[in-house]
């Protein structure tokens, strides 16, 4: 009796696993199939059958992994929609942010999707897609400091964390010359440094700071610098004009057929 029960239980468990695997697959298939029209492959990916994406992750809510390890986030959802449109599987290669836009040129990946602001300097060495997101610089501080550290001038003599190679780093160096600027490899280290009081503020893109503030509750965004908006773009090698065209065509389609709005709503309400 005991044996049969155990057998039945394991069979049930097995069928559950099979069902849930199939279930999640078909679920993602239907959402994608309903929203994109399949296109013929016009570019040559670095790995056959895959759209290889370089990204400095985790960088919530743009690129991070779900509990089941699938890549998600604003950038990643757009990328997987584009991959699906061309019948490719999404493959993500994580690497540090500094100089990440050179990766497609070096053949590491097809495209960079990493909350990458389009700048003239970067565009000299990479081809950018059309902008797909407007961002601003902002300041994340510990909750206790929210009324004292909320202007550029208030940063004088304070230690400010920035990420190496980002527009936030450039912005801090140009606009907060009296602050002690500390550069970090990744966003996670900046948040740790803020928690450990090694730094007084984190200067980086608003959506990332805002997401962190809501998620953890120990810090707040004290100011969003509204002076200049930055446009995020996907970067490819300058030789890969077909891929840029394919991405731009996809983005244009997503903006008209509701895919873009759906993804935007998912992460930014």
């Amino acid at each position: 009796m005991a044996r049969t029960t155990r057998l039945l239980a394991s069979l049930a468990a097995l069928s559950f696993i099979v069902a849930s695997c199939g279930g999640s697959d078909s679920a993602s298939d239907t959402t994608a199939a309903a929203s994109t029209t399949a296109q013929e492959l016009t570019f040559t990916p670095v790995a056959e059958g895959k759209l290889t994406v370089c990204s400095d992750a985790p960088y919530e809510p743009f690129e991070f992994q779900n509990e089941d390890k699938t890549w998600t986030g604003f950038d990643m959802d757009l990328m997987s929609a584009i991959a699906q449109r061309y019948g490719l599987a999404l493959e993500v290669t994580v690497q540090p942010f500094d100089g990440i836009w050179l990766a497609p040129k070096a053949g590491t990946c097809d495209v960079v999707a990493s909350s990458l602001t389009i700048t003239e300097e970067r565009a000299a060495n990479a081809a950018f897609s059309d902008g797909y997101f407007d961002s601003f610089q902002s300041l994340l501080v510990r909750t206790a400091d929210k009324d004292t550290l909320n202007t550029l001038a208030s940063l004088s003599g304070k230690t400010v964390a920035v990420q190496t190679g980002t527009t936030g780093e450039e912005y801090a160096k140009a606009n907060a010359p009296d602050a002690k600027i500390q550069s970090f490899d990744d966003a996670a280290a900046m948040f740790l440094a803020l928690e450990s009081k090694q730094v007084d503020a984190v200067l980086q893109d608003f959506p990332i700071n805002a997401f962190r503030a809501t998620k953890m509750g120990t810090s707040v965004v004290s100011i969003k610098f509204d002076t200049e908006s930055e446009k995020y773009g996907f970067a490819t090698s300058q030789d890969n004009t077909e891929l840029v065209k394919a991405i731009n065509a996809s983005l244009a389609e997503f903006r008209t057929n509701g895919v873009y709005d759906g993804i935007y709503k998912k992460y930014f309400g």
Partner: protein
Amino acid sequence: MAISKRKKAQYRRIAVYVLSVIALLAVALVVDWGRLQSAMFQWDIVVEQFPSILTNAAKNTIIFTIFGFAGGLSFGLLFALMRLSTIRPYRWFAATYIEIFRGIPLLVTLLILGFGIPIATGWHWPNPYVQGAVPLALVASAYMAETIRAGIEAVPKGQMEAARSLGMSYSRAMITIIIPQALRIIVPPLTNEFVLLIKDTSLISVLGVTEGTRDLARFGRDGVNHTANATPLIVAGLVYLAMTIPLTQLVAWMERRAKAASR
């Protein structure tokens, strides 16, 4: 006609030389030198790196290395002696310490000590140099403890016995007789440790760097960022070599002298 053994060896040697020359020529012809130079060795970028690569980056690398090595050597000696002690708790403590710090990668140790401890306790690291050098020294001491222990054990037992029979205390014999001989034995592995430390300093930048505390590797990476060219990395690599090669040569020379003296 049979070929003699010596002739055979000679032919083989000539063949190796010829093949090496052919391989070198092949590399020289296949590589697109112009492209390589423009991507990795642009002279104006090389010039741009100086002098701050030396006055700032190399200086910081040296500071981290020296603090790491000095701390590692003193604590390493302490742990080695504890490991050899007749008092059990000393041995247990030293063995546990060595296993932990030798087994955890420096990168992880840096993050745990650099961020984890302050978050958990509310205590601050006084400055970035201490924050980087202390974990480096702790990990180095674990490695050096084992090296020093091996050195002490390599000194013949008779030395200790002779010293004790002359009326020296255990600690006096250790300090004046055993440890000096042990240090001489472990100069080559300690040099190795020093070179490893120089390179390990490149991990400290995960804790965040200011303009003034950048190490050589970080300096090179920042350079790549600014120039979109690999030249700064090549220059940083050459500066590392400019530090390690004279050091290893100096130690090799010292070893030769020591060998001649002890003959």
